[in-house]
């Protein structure tokens, strides 16, 4: 038997909200589509084959991925603690985590330089083991971690909060250690939020400009001295819009492709 759909005239509030929402969607979509379609496929392909472009793409993707892995390793445990424990100063800790979202990112770059520059404490420690930050891959990564890790921590925290704590308690009484309970119950049940937060962190790292331009305007990476995509786009803009448009289009296409793929994986089987 075929399903019948009954048409119901939308009320005035829904109509107004749809129109307002459409403005936002157009504001997001029109500039992106216009940029993508401003260059022919041939131009895009030729631009992709330029060494400073593909090295930049590789640097940007690799650094964002490394930053996300660091975020997962350091951020997920913190998110779990915040979701499960009440302690004095918890609100303060949560506020600190979100600070990178609200401060100007160029200021964040300066702040990072103060800590990770070779003349400063953390910088000296890392320098002694061969890791430099200024003008280096590690600098790009640390800037990306700084500005984008709040997205991962906040998402993971909400994911852990949604896991019934009694599941962990049952697991403990059944013989699971806290580690086993975490890895076999809490983490798998919160993975969708963690994955979603990781995608957001990766995407935010990919688009970072302000902090990176201060700490690693250009970075040594796999034998190239290259720049992350947002810096490369800004650089090329100095030479005219025509010169920067294909790179911007490539950046948008790559970001969208990865973002859509990962979100599809994360929400597979779940109704919108």
């Amino acid at each position: 038997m075929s399903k019948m759909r009954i048409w119901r005239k939308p009320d005035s509030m829904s109509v107004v909200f749809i129109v307002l929402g459409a403005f936002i969607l157009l504001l997001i979509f029109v500039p992106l589509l216009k940029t993508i379609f401003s260059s022919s496929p041939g131009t895009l392909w030729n631009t992709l084959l330029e060494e400073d472009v593909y090295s930049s793409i590789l640097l940007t993707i690799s650094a964002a991925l490394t930053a996300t892995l660091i975020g997962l390793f350091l951020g997920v445990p913190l998110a779990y603690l915040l979701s499960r424990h009440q302690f004095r100063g918890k609100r303060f800790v949560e506020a600190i985590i979100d600070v990178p979202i609200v401060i100007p990112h160029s200021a964040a770059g300066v702040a990072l330089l103060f800590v990770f520059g070779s003349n400063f404490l953390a910088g000296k420690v890392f320098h002694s083991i061969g890791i430099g930050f200024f003008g280096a891959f590690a600098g790009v990564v640390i800037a990306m971690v700084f500005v984008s890790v709040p997205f991962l921590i906040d998402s993971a925290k909400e994911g852990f909060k949604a896991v019934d704590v009694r599941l962990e308690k049952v697991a403990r009484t059944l013989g699971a250690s806290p580690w086993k309970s975490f890895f076999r119950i809490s983490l798998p049940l919160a993975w969708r939020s963690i994955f979603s937060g990781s995608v957001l962190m990766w995407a935010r790292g990919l688009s970072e400009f302000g902090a990176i331009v201060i700490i690693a305007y250009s970075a040594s990476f796999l034998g190239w001295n290259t720049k992350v995509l947002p810096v490369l786009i800004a650089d090329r803009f100095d030479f005219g819009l025509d010169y920067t448009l294909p790179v911007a289009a490539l950046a948008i296409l790559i970001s969208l492709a990865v973002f859509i793929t990962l979100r599809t994986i994360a929400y597979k089987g779940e109704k919108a």
Partner: protein
Amino acid sequence: MIIIKNLKVNLGDFLLRDVNLDIKPGEYFIILGPTGAGKTVLLEAIAGLYPVLEGEVWIGDREISSLSPEKRGISIVYQDQVLFPHFSVEENIAFGLKVRKYPKNEVKANIDNMAEMVGISHLLKRSPITLSGGEKQKVALARALVTEPEVLLVDEPLSALDPETKEGMQRELREMHRRVKVTVIHVTHDFEEAVALGHRVAVLNDGCIAQVGTPEEFLRRPSSEFVARFALSRNIFSGRVVGIEDGCALIDIGGTKLIATTESKDDVRLSLRPEDILISPEPLRSTARNCFQGVVSDIADRGSVVYVTVSLPPDFICLITRQAFDELELRKGVRVWITFKASAIHVF
């Protein structure tokens, strides 16, 4: 045997204190109390899921107060059938065996035995999300029992079930207990559930144990007004002993003089169970020493039973069957006689 000595748990805005219990091996023990009394906290403190401020918990000759939950030999079943949603029914039951590193063939055999015992063999491959409330509860029980705990803690396991499933699960719990003979500590706020299942009951009120005893003791000899109310003793009065008659006390409760078997001589509080009062259109000829005429002032229909309020004054709430209610043709304003024994009155 589980012995709990002077247990104290501090949750900041709530204090569970002075909890002393002595639970026999294989006993079905009920912890009864209203919402917020601290029942779940007590259960979780026994399981090691809450840090204990003071006191000791013993299982047999083993002091377990400082052991982590996974080393106590205690399993817990929560209300709302908390199952691992990302595992199948089989994986849920297998969880405890796998983390304890049982050999694969033993895991399989134990799961099959347990599933058969609780009647869920046909559900093993299903996802918990697709199960009914009763089925989920059986899976949760199987998962808790398969590790052969010394003590099984069950936290309001029937409160989320419909009345018919609840009755069936009560039978299942009794049957499970008869077969497995594990010591059970069962938390509930439902007095009738406590009477149906418990060998003994502890009533918890505001973080303290108010009374420990058999269901019969709760029905006949509640230790306080709180316990009497919780045990559904709906007639609770204040009175004064005004005389002695044939070795029984004559107690004045607002103009009506009751005969009760008590040695109290002053102001008293007393309770009388609704089912201990007989209603009749004429005075009954019986050995019962309390017989009064009153007017039906309220009728609360509960389906198979009916609560009838008879005003003398004061108001007496009586419980009669639907059949008796129909036969007596009771309605508001009708004059009736109420009769009850002196021994039915309990003076605190």
